[in-house]
């Protein structure tokens, strides 16, 4: 118990939690935008892999770090366009298309990596985003090192959550996106283009997923290797549900999951780690997430038209 308490009051633990949460926040917001418009995007896992690779590769070839982020965003939008074209105007199964895109994007990224770097044994590194202490705020004891000594991309993740929240709830565009996810016929009857709005949401959302992937290579691990996304995309799908399709709550969920993850690493190094098998600690964040998901998602309001294709003129 003492060990757990010591972890919770250490600034480095919270700094790690915020860092681990950042890619999840990007991708969760991306998925949230898609689902709010009524499209489940199971391509998230593969799009994150693609973003991780393209972002890293662009920087490896000499682009600045933000250039890498832009390239990742563009590559995500490209796969988003593919997903949106198949699921929105053609109305194909969102499950099949999403899983197909995950397989396609993952395989394409790995293949491109092997093509570009056939000979390497250890993955080449790039110079990643460096911690950027916020003036004044980073001097506050505990909170400074925990929250305000992160990389620019982390600040961007939290900023994005704010922007997505404002757009969804305070602008005509956000209202239109929510409406096509709730009742596309109502949106169409008000003169909105359901197809355009849904495609736009999927394309932009997929871009953010890819940035989430790029965070891993550009801000965390500095290099690209296989299986680095490692199911984070699927976690984000759960986080959208956990957050009841609301950006603020989704960020909270991402930080909570990240805290479990950062905590289990530290718990392994305590006396508990000597007694219990380490696999138990690895499973801990997932077990706790499932429990939290069950508790939180009971009263969630699912977008009423999620996964319902809209065909104009059909009875």
């Amino acid at each position, binding site marked *: 118990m003492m060990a757990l308490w010591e972890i919770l009051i250490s600034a480095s633990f919270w700094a790690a939690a915020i860092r681990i949460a950042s890619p999840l926040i990007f991708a969760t917001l991306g998925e949230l935008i898609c689902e709010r418009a009524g499209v489940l995007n199971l391509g998230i896992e593969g799009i994150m892999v693609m973003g991780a690779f393209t972002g890293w590769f662009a920087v490896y070839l000499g682009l600045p770090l933000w250039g890498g982020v832009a390239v990742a965003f563009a590559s995500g939008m490209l796969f988003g366009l593919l997903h949106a074209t198949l699921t929105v105007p053609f109305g194909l199964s969102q499950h099949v298309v999403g899983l197909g895109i995950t397989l396609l994007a993952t395989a394409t990224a790995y293949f491109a990596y092997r093509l570009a770097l056939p000979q390497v044994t250890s993955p080449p590194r790039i110079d990643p985003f460096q911690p950027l202490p916020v003036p004044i705020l980073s001097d506050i004891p505990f909170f400074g090192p925990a929250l305000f000594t992160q990389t620019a991309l982390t600040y961007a993740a939290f900023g994005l959550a704010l922007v997505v929240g404002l757009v969804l709830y305070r602008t005509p565009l956000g209202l*239109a996106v929510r*409406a096509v996810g*709730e009742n596309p016929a109502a949106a*169409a009857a008000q003169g909105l283009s359901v197809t355009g709005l849904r495609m736009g949401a999927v394309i932009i959302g997929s871009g953010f997923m890819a940035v989430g992937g790029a965070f891993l290579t550009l801000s965390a691990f500095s290099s690209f290797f296989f299986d680095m996304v490692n199911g984070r995309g699927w976690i984000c799908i759960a986080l959208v549900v956990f957050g009841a399709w609301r950006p603020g709550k989704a960020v909270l969920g991402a930080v909570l999951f990240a805290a479990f993850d950062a905590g289990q690493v530290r718990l392994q190094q305590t006396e508990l780690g000597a007694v219990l098998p380490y696999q138990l600690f690895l499973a801990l964040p997932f077990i706790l997430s499932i429990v939290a998901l069950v508790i939180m998602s009971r009263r969630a309001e699912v977008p009423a038209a999620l996964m319902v294709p809209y065909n104009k003129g059909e009875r």
Partner: protein
Amino acid sequence: MPSPEVLRLDRITKRFGALVANDAISLSLAAGEVVALLGENGAGKTTLMNILFGQYVADEGMITAFGQPLPPGNPRAALAAGIGMVHQHFTLADHLSVLENIVLGTRPLLSLSLGLGAARDKIRALSQDFGLAVDPDARVGQLGVGQRQRVEILKALYRDARVLILDEPTAVLTPQEADALFATLRRMVARGLSVIFISHKLHEVMAIANRCVVLRHGKLVGTVETAGTNPADLAAMMVGAEVQRPAIAPGQPGPALLRLRAVRTPDAEGAAGLKAASLALHAGQITGIAGVSGNGQAALSDVVSGLLAPRAGQLEIAGTPAPQPWTPAAALACGIGRIPEDRHKAGTIADFTLAENTVLETRRMAPFSTRGFWMNWGAARAHAQAIIAKYDVRCPGPETPIRLLSGGNMQKLILGRVLEGAPRVVLANQPVRGLDIGAITYVHSQLIAARDRGAAVLLISEDLDEVLQLSDVLHVISEGRLSPPIPRGGASVAELGLMMAGEGVFDAA
């Protein structure tokens, strides 16, 4: 002086597959005029209006609004031209507020503000002017049906609509709400707005419309001034002939085919269960159940069709105890045919074809399957084709998804599915709800034919006239209790009304 024309539809034609829903229909509308679009279910009224509003694209023909041609298939253009539509099935997002539903799509998507403050003021003013009281900040999901309809009308007025299309607006309203709606419409007309009013209720049309346009089978059959016509003539135009009520000779009662003895079922949410209900259904007789909705009709229907096993009491089929466990399959095996209350939810599977829907209950029997395992689709299609022909189901063919059919045609198919199995007991729960006169007459005559064939018919209806007209014997149901049987003519309407309100002689509790 004639008012200026605001809208003109010119030879509009629309086909769904082989079905011609609208056949070269022309129509015009003047400022300050109410035109009623009258026709049976499936006559093509809603299709025509969806074309006008840009939700369907017409195969032929053109629309002119305020002198300008209206681009086809574009609701935005229709809205911009001042046309607003209140759909029969409301197009509102339940999770959004009234305000959000109304302002949706009214501002450029990329503007930074929703302008909710100004919108709220405008909505308040419109509510006041037109008598459409509704709280702008309420969530639509929490509103009643009448209020939702007001939101729909406000949506159109908020966009400064000059022409309002109302698709069967009173189908979902109480009489008081309908009166309030008519008052609103009169205020709108007084300000020079025009209304297209879709209905098949003749007295409403007579009350509100200046002119009636009558459609039948997708064709325009006539346009008449309301002042120069009467409901009987309109009905004749709608159905194509003088409406004939089936001549009902008394039934020849035989033995009891199904008997409930002091059956009890638990109360359900918002509806009573059965409280020691006793009932005997005799061969060759129509037994009617009269009562106000929610008084145990659903439980009675579920017990008879096997969806619900009695908690106490006995159920007998032709004098022997019902098989255990009592399930829908057991009920079917006992020869109980079911016309469910909700044909969309409990009667059919929307995306299945007519042929598939036809054999849902008999799929494991010859000739539709071999040894109950391999489906024989040829036989299923032939059977569906036979029902389509015999019961006059208007559709392109047995391979059509059933959701494309109008309510009346769907009900005819269900009727055919049940009656072709020659059931010993026919459960007809609200068999004519939402149907037009022609279809109602047809369904009733088929139920009488089943009775005359020797079936025991149980007719559950909230329409007292229907029960009185058809039943050889009737029971009143109130709070889950059944009255003793009342023979035809055995009680006055006033007496029945008292019993429906829970006063009168009921089986011992």
